[in-house]
């Protein structure tokens, strides 16, 4: 193809003189645009260009605003304005004229007008509102081209709030006789779905019709919507799996018109889209996956032409195969396919090969071994992108044995890297690996020092935070603890003696803190020496004032002895008059505390870091002071938001004379329903940052760091890996692969044979990089074992090396037998899947059934909340059986017992069914949630099915949407043999979402010494968090005006008797626990809150048989989520 365009002459000015050239015949050389372009190319300096364009813009501006300009001239002017904007000069004066042109022009003029609008404005631009009417008119036009133009612009940008205005027209187009119109209408709906999913919820069945459209183009377009919807909720579309498979079959077999072929491959875009959809549907779902196996194999087989497009399909195919429920033959074929990518000489394919490997090694680390030669070559690749992707791959296969080599490679890359994004990302990964797998103290401290120096001030703040937390919390072994701190102190002292001015601020802060806390541990180190080093930092110009604060605090902790105090005094003198108040305060503290030894010992006791601080957050000790001040006439304190509100009200008041008086009751709501007002207000709210909700997200996740370190890092010394070790470890299990890697490249790559000398180096590198992977390979066919869970094993107890090898040995002995039994068991299940008799038959093999989920990794279980169960009928039910794996069914007998373990205080409350979540050889985890009036409690049951007591079970929960807090004293439990340990957690909503999920890890140590972990996830609908909010009508009115996030939708009311509004609200009240504030005529106002205290208000109005519902809340997304549940509640009724 490039030859075709190769004809382009590179030197522009020389070409312009050749008017007879084939390309330039079409140039409108006499046009004004032509003149402008030519003018620009003749210029030599940027300055001249600027002058010329400014002149041009001035003339355009004059002409567009002249009343005599015809639409045709306007079109020409618009094209020139677009050109100027493309060159980077602003032409905002023309935006309004672009809209006018789209409105008033005919055909091509309109087309240019729409184009200019779509290039000039974005969907949040306020002028776009002016386009709504034009779009409405054109959608109703009898001219197909005009309808097309309107649909095209709508699919690119449309104001969210105006969607209801055109939705019926767009929907209507789904049945248009012309396929191009249907296609564009589907894409417009796709766009609506992306920006406002609630608005198009009611037309889901029409999407199905589009999917069955006889025109392949329309069907392809509908897949965009399906991909999106299935990604969000795969459970809802399992019934379509077979249809998608059939479509793919037809495409692959070449049943589509030839038009859709691309380089003789049938409809590649369609194929890829379908493969992505199938991957979502088959994930964690064996029965759906089984439907796909045939067509996936067929796709792999068919893709034989050596062209990019074939590889694109293959890549998607491989990803799909590794995402869905595994089938060993397919995996083998896919693995071979990855080999073709990785070994390709084409750099783009090599890159994708690495990317695919990175994706699959999490499930099958053996694959990395097969390609070690290539991976090592890629590590030294001149293209940084390849190098970067290789590091990503290595990151995924890191273990305790190869961590040193891999981290060294990453740091090497980081030192030469200039891109901030990459630095932030890689530095985080190095820190993660260092904390997880550090072989010894020295290495850890040195690595972290490099991380801090390289990461500089751009890195994520939680890296230094978790590092300091790790140091301060210490480990179980006091001696190790001391050694680590000592080493840190030593290395930081020597850093400060060097050139501390070059170190980043964050690192200096870490150093000061460590020296302040722990320098006393090094007895021979004089406090005065430390103080001088710190004081030197204060004198360095580049030190920021934040760092200076840290330094002063550190000095306060260490100042001791005559010399020390005098150094401190000197510093105090300088900074007690500093303009920076924070510094001045620190200096004052230093001054006082350095002089009063006893006070200092009391305020800053040594080793206090590990003891929890008691904080009186209500500041009750100040009560006396406050009441005195109030008595003396001080104004009472108002919190920030209250002051803001009053300020805003004060402003609103000044507007009063010009507008109608606004009463604070519900009737004002109706006043504000005019479209412009509504959209302007919500547009504003969209732009303003939502402060209150984002607060929690930056808090560092530090949990568990301590334990990883404490028990793993030090007790076992992993020697630097020798080659002989490697042979020993990988020898028996891995010999075929190892040989392929070490003795020379695999047979497909005869060209890669390197010369002996570098070969040896590479071999050494290979052995150090890939050590520890081989032993797991025997497990890989079982599913997704060890490697996937490795990342989460931060909390694992016990020494890394012994645990991993020990467990592997025990596991691999089990695996052989359970693999055979696996099939057997599945058969049993299949045949009995609906009958209750499955339970007893499975109970005969309890040991076996409990093994299964462990082999399949964490299994996601749909929560059995009543809401979910009621509405989604049999679909979800069936799938749950499959997804939940056999074990929980087998343990049915035990499940009944769990309810007996439900804490007594919950006995009277309503709780969900107890659903099994995950289990392994020794532990079964189940959970349910209990609705309390002011909270929602998640109760987790852990049943110890082994014969030995488990002394410490550590349960940790995390969630993106929820705030999880532990009820009771500690999350650590003990489980005696054959008994149940119960943990309670209180959940509140942090970030609203239609469904929320909690993921958890149970880690524990068996008496035998191996550490284990079980992972699970628990899903529940937002409705479980809704509680009534009792407010008066007046309060409601005030709140309504304050809330910035809203959504509106028409719902179908419920008609039981005479009063549909009342009936509907009663249903909502009953199902969603809303509080009905007042009903006035055809309008009703309702309020609720989402735990803990996120209010949401609803206003509904019955009009012409439809219920228009308007939801408002200060919390973003909450109105949308609630709207979804209201709609569901009404539909189910």
């Amino acid at each position: 193809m490039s030859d075709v365009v190769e004809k382009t002459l590179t030197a522009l000015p020389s070409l312009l003189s050749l008017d007879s050239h084939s390309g330039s015949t079409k140039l409108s050389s006499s046009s004004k645009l032509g003149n402008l372009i030519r003018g620009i190319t003749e210029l030599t300096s940027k300055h001249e260009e600027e002058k010329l364009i400014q002149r041009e813009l001035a003339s355009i501006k004059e002409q567009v605003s002249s009343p005599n300009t015809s639409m045709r001239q306007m079109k020409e002017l618009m094209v020139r304005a677009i050109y100027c904007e493309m060159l980077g000069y602003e032409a905002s004066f023309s935006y309004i004229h672009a809209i006018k042109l789209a409105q008033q022009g005919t055909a091509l003029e309109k087309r240019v007008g729409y184009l200019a609008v779509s290039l000039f404005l974005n969907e949040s631009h306020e002028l776009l509102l002016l386009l709504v009417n034009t779009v409405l008119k054109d959608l109703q036009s009898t001219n197909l081209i005009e309808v097309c133009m309107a649909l095209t612009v709508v699919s690119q940008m449309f104001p969210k709030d105006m969607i209801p205005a055109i939705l019926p027209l767009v929907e209507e187009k789904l049945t248009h006789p012309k396929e191009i119109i249907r296609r564009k209408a589907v894409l417009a709906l796709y766009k609506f779905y992306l920006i406002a999913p609630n608005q198009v919820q009611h037309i889901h069945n029409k999407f199905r019709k589009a999917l069955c459209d006889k025109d392949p183009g329309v069907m392809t377009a509908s897949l965009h919507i399906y991909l999106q919807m299935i990604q969000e909720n795969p459970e809802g579309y399992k019934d379509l799996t077979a249809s998608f498979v059939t479509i793919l079959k037809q495409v692959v077999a070449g049943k589509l018109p030839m038009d859709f072929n691309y380089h003789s491959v049938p409809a590649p875009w369609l194929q890829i889209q379908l493969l992505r959809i199938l991957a979502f549907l088959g994930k964690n779902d064996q029965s759906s996956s089984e439907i796909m196996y045939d067509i996936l194999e067929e796709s792999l087989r068919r893709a034989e032409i050596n062209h990019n497009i074939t590889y694109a399909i293959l890549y998607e195919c491989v990803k799909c195969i590794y995402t869905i429920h595994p089938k060993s033959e397919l995996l083998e074929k896919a693995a071979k396919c990855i080999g073709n990518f990785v070994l390709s000489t084409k750099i783009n394919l090599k890159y994708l090969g690495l990317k695919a490997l990175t994706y699959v090694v999490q499930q099958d680390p053996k694959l990395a071994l097969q390609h070690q030669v290539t991976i090592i070559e890629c590590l030294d690749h001149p293209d940084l992108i390849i190098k970067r992707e290789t590091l990503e791959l290595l990151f995924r296969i890191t273990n305790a044995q190869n961590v040193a080599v891999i981290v060294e490679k990453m740091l090497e890359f980081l030192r030469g890297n200039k891109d901030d994004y990459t630095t932030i990302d890689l530095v985080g990964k190095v820190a993660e690996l260092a904390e997880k797998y550090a072989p010894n103290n020295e290495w850890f401290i040195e690595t972290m020092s490099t991380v801090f120096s390289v990461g500089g001030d751009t890195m994520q703040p939680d890296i230094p935070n978790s590092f300091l937390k790790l140091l301060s919390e210490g480990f179980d072994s006091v001696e190790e603890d001391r050694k680590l701190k000592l080493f840190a102190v030593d290395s930081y002292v020597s850093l400060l003696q060097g050139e501390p001015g070059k170190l980043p601020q964050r690192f200096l802060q870490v150093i000061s803190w460590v020296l302040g806390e722990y320098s006393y541990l090094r007895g021979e180190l004089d406090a005065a020496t430390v103080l001088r080093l710190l004081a030197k930092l204060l004198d360095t110009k580049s030190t920021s004032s934040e760092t200076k604060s840290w330094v002063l605090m550190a000095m306060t902790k260490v100042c001791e002895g005559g010399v020390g105090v005098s150094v401190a005094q000197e510093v105090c003198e300088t900074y007690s008059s500093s303009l920076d108040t924070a510094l001045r305060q620190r200096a004052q503290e230093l001054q006082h505390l350095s002089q009063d030894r006893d006070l200092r010992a009391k305020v800053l006791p040594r080793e206090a870091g590990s003891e929890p601080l008691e904080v009186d957050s209500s500041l009750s000790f100040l009560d006396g002071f406050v009441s005195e001040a109030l008595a003396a006439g001080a104004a009472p304190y108002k919190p920030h938001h209250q002051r803001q509100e009053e300020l805003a009200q004060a402003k609103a008041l000044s507007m009063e004379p010009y507008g109608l008086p606004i009463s604070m009751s519900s009737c004002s709501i109706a006043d504000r329903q005019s479209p412009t007002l509504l959209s302007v207000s919500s547009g504003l709210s969209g732009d303003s940052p939502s402060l209150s909700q984002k607060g929690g997200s930056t808090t560092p996740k530090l949990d568990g760091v301590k334990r990883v370190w404490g028990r793993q890092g030090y007790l076992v010394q992993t020697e630097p890996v020798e080659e002989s070790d490697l042979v020993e470890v990988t020898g028996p299990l891995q010999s075929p692969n190892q040989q392929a890697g070490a003795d020379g490249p695999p047979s497909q790559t005869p060209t890669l044979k390197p010369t002996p000398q570098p070969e040896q180096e590479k071999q050494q590198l290979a052995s150090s990089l890939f050590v520890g992977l081989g032993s797991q390979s025997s497990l890989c066919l079982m599913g997704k074992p060890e490697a996937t869970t490795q990342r989460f094993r931060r909390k694992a107890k016990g020494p890394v090396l012994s645990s991993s090898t020990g467990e592997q040995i025990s596991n691999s002995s089990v695996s052989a037998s359970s693999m055979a039994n696996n099939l057997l068991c599945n058969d049993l299940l299949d045949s009995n899947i609906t009958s209750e008799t499955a339970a007893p038959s499975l109970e005969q093999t309890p040991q076996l059934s409990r093994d299964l989920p462990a082999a399949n990794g964490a299994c996601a279980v749909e929560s059995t909340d009543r809401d979910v169960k009621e509405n989604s009928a049999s679909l979800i039910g069936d799938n749950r059986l499959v997804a939940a794996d056999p074990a929980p069914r087998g343990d049915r007998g035990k499940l009944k017992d769990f309810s007996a373990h439900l804490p007594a205080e919950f006995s009277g409350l309503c709780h969900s069914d107890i659903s099994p979540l995950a289990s392994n050889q020794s532990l079964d985890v189940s959970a349910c949630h209990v609705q309390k009036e002011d909270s929602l409690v998640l109760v987790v049951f852990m049943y110890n099915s082994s014969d030995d007591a488990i002394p410490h079970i550590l349960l940790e929960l995390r969630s993106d949407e929820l705030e999880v807090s532990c009820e009771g004293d500690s999350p650590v439990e003990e489980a005696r043999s054959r008994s149940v340990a119960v943990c309670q957690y209180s959940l509140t909503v942090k970030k609203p979402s239609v469904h929320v999920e909690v993921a958890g890890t149970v880690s524990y140590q068996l008496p035998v010494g191996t550490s284990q972990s079980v992972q699970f996830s628990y899903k529940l609908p937002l409705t479980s968090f809704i509680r009534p909010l009792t407010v008066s009508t007046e309060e409601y009115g005030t709140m309504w005006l304050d809330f910035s996030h809203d959504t509106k939708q028409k719902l179908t009311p419920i008609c039981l008797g005479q009063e549909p509004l009342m009936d509907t609200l009663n249903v909502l009240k009953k199902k969603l626990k809303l509080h009905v504030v007042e009903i006035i005529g055809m309008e009703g106002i309702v309020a609720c809150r989402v735990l803990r205290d996120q209010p949401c208000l609803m206003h509904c109005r019955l009009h012409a048989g439809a219920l228009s519902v308007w939801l408002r809340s200060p919390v973003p997304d909450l109105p949308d989520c609630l709207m979804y549940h209201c709609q569901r509640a009404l539909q189910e009724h």
Partner: protein
Amino acid sequence: MQFMLLFSRQGKLRLQKWYVPLSDKEKKKITRELVQTVLARKPKMCSFLEWRDLKVVYKRYASLYFCCAIEHQDNELITLEIIHRYVELLDKYFGSVCELDIIFNFEKAYFILDEFLLGGEPQETSKKTVLKAIEQADLLQELYRPERSRDVK
């Protein structure tokens, strides 16, 4: 797809299409940085780039660079073929397209792009159908012209 840029070897922007709402300032900054990064790459290097939190896929045709930003889960190779299909469409429409065609008729290039990609997703992958749609719209313009001139009179 997040956006598509066309620029020349000299770094001059020839076409820009943004599928995500961004401010003009951001757009300019992104364009400047990306043009610099891509132009600095050597011919034998990979056509994919990690750039900020996006993936950039680019390809050079004669003196023009076509450059698309996609998300991480998207397929890089198929994006490369999207670029190629677009070039094929331009080539068919203009009849061996060259950079000058795109400079002087950039609005046409935009029309073709809008018929091929809509809202960042491939709308129609059949070459014939896309060109038919464009031709019909072009034809309409011819039909309208006489009417229009009558109006003026």
